[in-house]
């Protein structure tokens, strides 16, 4: 690994041209993350992460296992509040407001910033009730049927389930369940949808339908997606953040850190950091 290696063209990831990426001055900042350090029981999982996430773009978070990708995006909607030993330092400004600041209601935060998980987690209820669940809880009951249909259509699931909305969601296939979870998340009209490896349990066809869906929906939403799959990051993301583990500190601990954050095109073709290059070309060791 010591010698400089030029990237072999055939080893590169296919890049779909990201014609949609606006120049920096036209990007609207949704999250402004400043010096975020997140700890579990005092042990930092990510240290000093600073980056901005932009509106109506897809931002991918990639990096080796255990580098704190899940920890990072679970900070963005305060999902980590549920972990008792969790503590965060630094600021996460959401449209200028610090999410961990005093007087911020985590329920209201999650209402604006939805989340889709790695394993499809439909409720053991009917398809309809899965989508209607959040709507009912949030009092968005006017035109419930229409809202459910709209969300399922947006999630590219409507045609497959329209005749059997009363069927248990657990009888759907994994890919359908995951699209149902996306429908459930967007039904309540959030601003941001966080996805933590949403396709890792799915086959390539289901995966590509979810990627298409993100392309479609990013006009209305801001997406942050964690993925292990670099092809996927290259295909769907406008911006890509590469996380890695820092070298062991004096206590011998390694924690996650942000190595490089840039336009996806740049990260996958001409990364500025050597570690990024090693990772995206598959030479990560």
């Amino acid at each position: 690994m010591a010698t400089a290696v030029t990237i072999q063209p055939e080893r590169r990831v296919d890049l779909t041209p990201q014609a949609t990426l606006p120049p920096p001055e036209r990007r609207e900042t949704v999250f402004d993350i400043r010096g975020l350090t997140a700890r579990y029981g005092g042990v930092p999982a990510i240290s000093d992460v600073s980056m901005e996430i932009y509106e109506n773009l897809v931002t991918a978070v990639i990096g080796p296992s255990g580098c704190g990708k899940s920890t990072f995006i679970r900070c963005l909607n305060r999902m980590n509040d549920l972990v008792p030993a969790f503590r965060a330092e630094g600021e996460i400004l959401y449209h200028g407001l610090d999410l961990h600041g005093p007087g911020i209601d985590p329920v209201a935060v999650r209402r604006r910033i939805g989340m889709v998980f790695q394993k499809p987690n439909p409720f053991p209820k009917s398809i309809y009730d899965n989508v209607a669940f959040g709507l009912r809880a949030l009092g968005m009951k006017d035109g419930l049927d229409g809202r459910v249909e709209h969300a399922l259509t947006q999630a590219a699931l409507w045609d497959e389930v329209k005749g059997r909305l009363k069927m248990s969601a657990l009888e759907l296939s994994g890919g359908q369940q995951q699209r149902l979870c996306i429908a459930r998340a967007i039904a309540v009209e959030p601003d941001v949808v966080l996805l933590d490896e949403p396709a890792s349990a799915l086959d390539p066809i289901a995966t590509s339908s979810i990627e298409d869906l993100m392309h479609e929906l990013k006009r209305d939403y801001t997406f942050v997606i964690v993925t292990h799959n670099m092809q996927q990051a290259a295909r769907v993301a406008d911006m890509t953040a590469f996380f890695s583990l820092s070298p062991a500190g004096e206590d011998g601990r390694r924690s996650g850190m942000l190595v490089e954050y840039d336009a996806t095109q740049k990260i996958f073709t001409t990364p500025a950091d050597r570690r990024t290059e090693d990772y995206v070309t598959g030479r990560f060791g």
Partner: protein
Amino acid sequence: MATTSPSLARAAELRRRGRFHPGDAALHGVTLVAALGAVALLALIAWKVVDQARPAMHRFGLHFLVSNTWDPGIHQVFGAAAFIFGTAVTSLGALLIAGPLSIAIALFLTELAPRWLRGPIGTLVEMLAAVPSVVVGLWGILVMGPFVANHLEPWLKHTFGFLPLFGGDPSIFGLLPAILVLTIMITPIVSSVSRELFLGVPQDLKEGALALGTTRWEMIRGVVLPYARSGIAAALILGLGRAVGEAIAVTQVIGGNVAIHWSLFRPGDTLASRIASQYQGATTKLQVGSIAYLATILLVFSLLANVAAQAIVRKVARRQPVIR
């Protein structure tokens, strides 16, 4: 030949080995005997009870179930109606209080209480189940009875006196103290079973609900309770079985009386308490038979409750969500 004979030998070894394992056979034998023994014991008990009850069954038939008399004197007329009534009122009453209370305790212990408090409180609640029922009954007489007679019942009468349930004179012994004692006895069971059920609700379902911006209560109502619903039903039936069968503590506080009335303040008797209080003094074959007849009713009910609870549990076990 050189290539086949070792493999042949190895195959033969397999055959020899597979023939007999003394350890397995012994295990099989012992467990089989134990299992059959349990079944035989149950059958034996049931048969013995029914056999004892035969004189009363011959004399009174099914009329026993609706007859509201218990006259061990010269007339020798017996009936179970008052005790069936007392059993129904006290156990349903206890269930009505213990059900919501237990669910609340279980929710508190799994979802709401600060983590450091969950272990100690959970243990304390379960220790309540370990208190011998005769001790609960004694406490019922010495502490709860006076409280009920001097404070609770007067207050109930004052506030809800227009209901026949709370009419009559406050008393240390009666249906209400029995209900309260039974509540204390079944709450630990129902709450610890419910707690297990709530702990079994997958974390990702709860996170899924919270990620939609629901409050903790909405999450509990929408995900946790529906997920645990049939399990809770089974726990309640188990609690009911326990309440129906409880004899000692109830006997200590219920007062003993053959009557069907609406006042919870007045004394009564349950099937179990009547059996416990009368068996020693039974003189005639017919009276012993009648007591055994009460026991038969109790046995049938308990078995039914148990079977129902198990059927529900089995249904729940099958319903575990599968991700495909």
